[in-house]
């Protein structure tokens, strides 16, 4: 990795021959089933950082099944017939009995059966679950990796993608492949309904009892009225309560195939040797169908400002967003530069104005690609007022700074500073092992190949002050704006 960063830095400073050298370090293989495999040798320590990323996320969910991608992410940790079952034939039958008991119960509820009948079927459902649990080891995948010294075993689901991460001592490569090939072939969604309860707790924790999570949900719902970016990624409470194992398995089966995934290995690898092992295991997974045409509706252009308030038991906070295009549209890169100009570092415009000069905000931050990047997304600005200043004060100050961006070209020094920062941010991402694995997976899956990572700097370096001014004028308009405000419940602010 360290070698990587050195080379990438030179790429930034001296494009040409050295970029070629780095590209030559990365090995890319495509298996017959369509799985793309990237390997990046780094001998600093005898470890490998793995990232397995699928082009599946919240946008792929059917209406009413909100959050099912996230639920399936949880379920993929539950094991397979050979990982986690004490007796597969019996467990399989027991899991089918759970599904049947759940279906019986659902039917009774739908048919408005008597309370006694519903109670009886609920008891039967719970008994079936207990029977199935007796035949399984609950967390066998985690156990295998824990035993072998894992670090950072985790997964995450976004609107656009899902990734599974773990770092292991490098001689455990075959264990990793044995486990994940099996998961992709034979995932068993055991303890499904217990896990749905866990996800409900996760929803309470992240989206209901956290003021930032609650405000973000309101904001997205207001900004995206048609496109799935407006739905809560974790699902609504009702949707989570409505999850059924067969529907979840159907979603898994529709989407999670090798031809829709990238596997990245960063660390102590020898590509020509290790690809043999990768082929043996991951190559055994059959190719699946291509991504179905989901007819995801485009968000129509916004015609007027939208505002929403959330009354909440917390101090006030402000979230402003503007619709904008995504990559590879050149304006998406321009908006990345504007992101740095506004909030990156202590000399950035909004930090200096709101936090230091006016002492009106505790903090201010922005993002140029929220909440996803695969479809047209938003530029967002978030700020917390310092009492007695209000969110209205912050709005006024922020709009003044956005007007300045529209009216005056950015000076050459500031532009150079922002380019340096973009470069530094780039290096930070590429320094860490797991971060590098994730970034490469991302570029390979969505940006037309990992090589794209070497081309972006050239794009940023050619963006002019005039383009920045034009983009600010194009997107920072009142009618393109959504404003969500957290108002203290029962408070005067």
């Amino acid at each position, binding site marked *: 990795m360290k070698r990587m960063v050195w080379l990438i830095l030179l790429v930034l400073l001296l494009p040409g021959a050295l970029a070629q050298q780095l590209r030559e370090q990365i090995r890319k293989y495509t298996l017959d089933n369509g799985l793309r495999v990237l390997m990046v040798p780094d001998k600093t*320590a*005898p470890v490998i950082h793995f990232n397995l990323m699928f082009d599946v996320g919240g946008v792929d969910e059917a209406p009413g099944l909100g959050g099912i991608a996230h639920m399936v992410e949880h379920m993929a940790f539950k094991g397979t017939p*050979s990982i986690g079952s004490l007796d597969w034939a019996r467990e399989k039958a027991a899991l089918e009995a759970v599904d049947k008991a759940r279906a019986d119960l659902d039917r009774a509820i739908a048919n408005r059966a008597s309370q006694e009948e519903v109670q009886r079927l609920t008891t039967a459902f719970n008994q079936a679950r207990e029977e199935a649990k007796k035949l399984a080891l609950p*967390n066998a995948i985690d156990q295998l990796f*824990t*035993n072998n010294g894992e670090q950072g075993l985790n997964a995450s689901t976004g609107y656009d993608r899902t990734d599974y991460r773990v770092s292991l001592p490098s001689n455990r490569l075959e264990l990793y492949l044995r486990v994940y090939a099996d998961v992709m072939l034979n995932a068993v969604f055991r303890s499904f309904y217990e896990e749905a309860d866990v996800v409900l707790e996760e929803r309470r*924790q992240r989206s209901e009892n956290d003021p930032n999570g609650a405000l973000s949900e309101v904001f997205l719902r207001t900004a995206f009225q048609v496109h799935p970016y407006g739905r809560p990624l974790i699902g609504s409470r009702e949707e989570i309560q409505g999850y059924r194992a067969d529907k979840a398995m159907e979603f898994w089966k529709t989407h999670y195939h090798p031809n829709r995934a990238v596997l990245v290995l960063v660390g102590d690898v020898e590509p020509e040797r290790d690809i043999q092992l990768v082929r043996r295991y991951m190559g055994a997974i059959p190719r699946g169908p291509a991504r179905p045409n989901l007819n995801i509706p485009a968000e129509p252009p916004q015609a007027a400002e939208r505002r929403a308030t959330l009354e909440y038991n917390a101090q006030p906070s402000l979230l402003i967003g503007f619709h904008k295009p995504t990559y590879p549209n050149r304006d998406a890169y321009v908006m990345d530069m504007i992101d740095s100009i506004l909030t990156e*570092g202590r000399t950035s415009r909004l930090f200096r104005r709101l936090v230091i000069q006016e002492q009106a905000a505790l903090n201010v931050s922005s993002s140029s690609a929220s909440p996803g990047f695969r479809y047209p997304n938003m530029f967002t600005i978030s700020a917390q007022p310092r009492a007695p200043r209000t969110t209205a004060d912050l709005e006024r100050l922020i709009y003044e700074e956005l007007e300045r961006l529209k009216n005056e070209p950015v000076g050459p020094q500031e532009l150079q500073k922002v380019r*340096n920062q973009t470069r530094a941010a780039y290096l930070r991402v590429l320094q860490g092992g797991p971060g590098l694995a994730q970034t490469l997976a991302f570029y390979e899956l969505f940006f037309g190949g990992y090589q794209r990572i070497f081309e972006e700097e050239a794009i940023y370096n050619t963006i002019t002050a005039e383009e920045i001014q034009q983009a600010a004028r194009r997107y920072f308009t009142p009618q393109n704006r959504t404003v969500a405000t957290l108002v203290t419940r029962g408070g005067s602010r």
Partner: protein
Amino acid sequence: MKALWSLLIGLLTLGLAQGVPADWPDPFKMQFQRLQPSAIQPTRAQLSNGLTVLLVEDRTLPFVNGRVYLRAGAIFEPEDKVGLSGIFSSVMRTGGAGERTPDQIDETLEALAASVSVNTDNLFTSVAFSTLSENLDQVLQIWADILVRPRFAQERIDLEKGRALEAIRRRNDQPTQIAVREFVRRINEGHPAGRISSVASVQSITRDDLVAFHQRFFKPNVAVLAVTGDFNTQEMLARLERALQGWQRGEVTLPSFPPPSPKPSIYFVQKETNQSVIYMGNPTVTAYAPGYSELDLVSRVLGDGFNSRLFTEVRTKRGLAYATGGAQTQGFGWPGFFYGASISRVEKTAEVIEIMLAQFRDLRERPVSQEELELFRNNILNAEVFRFTSRQAVAERIARTQMLGLPADYYEQYVRQIQAATPADLQRVMQQYVRPEQFVIVVVGDRRQFDKPLSSLGNLIEVPLE
């Protein structure tokens, strides 16, 4: 749908019983050697002013990173000025230094895409830099100015105090934040680690206080610098001599404090929320005392990850939490604590508390299985290679070990004890150090929705939110 799926898999894998080719190994039987990391040994040197320097050359990258540690920990703040160390570290970095104004420092560093940062925790204040090696002299000079000649500009003190007061105003917004604060406060009661800032304590902080804190602790002869990257060791030492000339030796005496003496109770904070945040535990031993390694190991059985007792009982089996776990904290200078935590739906609050307490009790009453012990022992031993993925992290770890006066083979001793631990050892330390009947329990939640009054579980003290 499900039947069809099973059938498809059956065909694709030629009807194998468990869906994988017959020549694939059983993953539970796969054997691997424990990898030995190649240790990184920094060069050790001393500057003429007494500063200890640990250096690791690494010429593969055009970067240099450094961090100097001082024993200016938050626990040494004056008792009536809690919050001082936070203001101190912010303004040390942002309040100008040497000949430079606050803005000049920010502008120079940002133009060079370099960074200098100041951080304070309970034990240390550290001042770090990160730069391209071609800008080393310039960045080293700014870092040295911030370290030795901070200006503490009054307007930046006012700014950071105002932000700290706003943070206090906001610190009851999130139930988890309230619970963590109350738990750390209650379990460290009687020790400075249990103090929390207040509007009055922050308002009372003056520039003189910051200058005095700096003069009291920032002496080269009691500091250790870890520096790694693209340099020649002898040249680096000469550069450091130049940059740090004028930094005078001095005597630093660290006060000692009595250990925490918490009052066992259920501390309850009323908050309108649909989940309760629950923390429970008691202080145990320092990280270098007999029993620590075994407590660390048994705390993993209790609360480290998917296969721990808390995770299995609270989350996997019952779906009563997304976040649940526990650990033995590392105590340096005063005992760490052994604890568990869950965030669970409010109408199951008492049930979850009882399930959690039962896990602690069980580890006292019955030895863990050999298999369970091996799982967590193997995790510690096999993960050792990850301690050596960054040269800077290794050098910083050695610096902290020295500053705390720990033996150089502190970690090796720990590993030997982990290797030797038996189920009986784990049960012994549980019985000796972990006493559920004397726990500090903190609950943040909405009492109107509890399944049982918390007073039925023990002595209840209600903590009002300011």
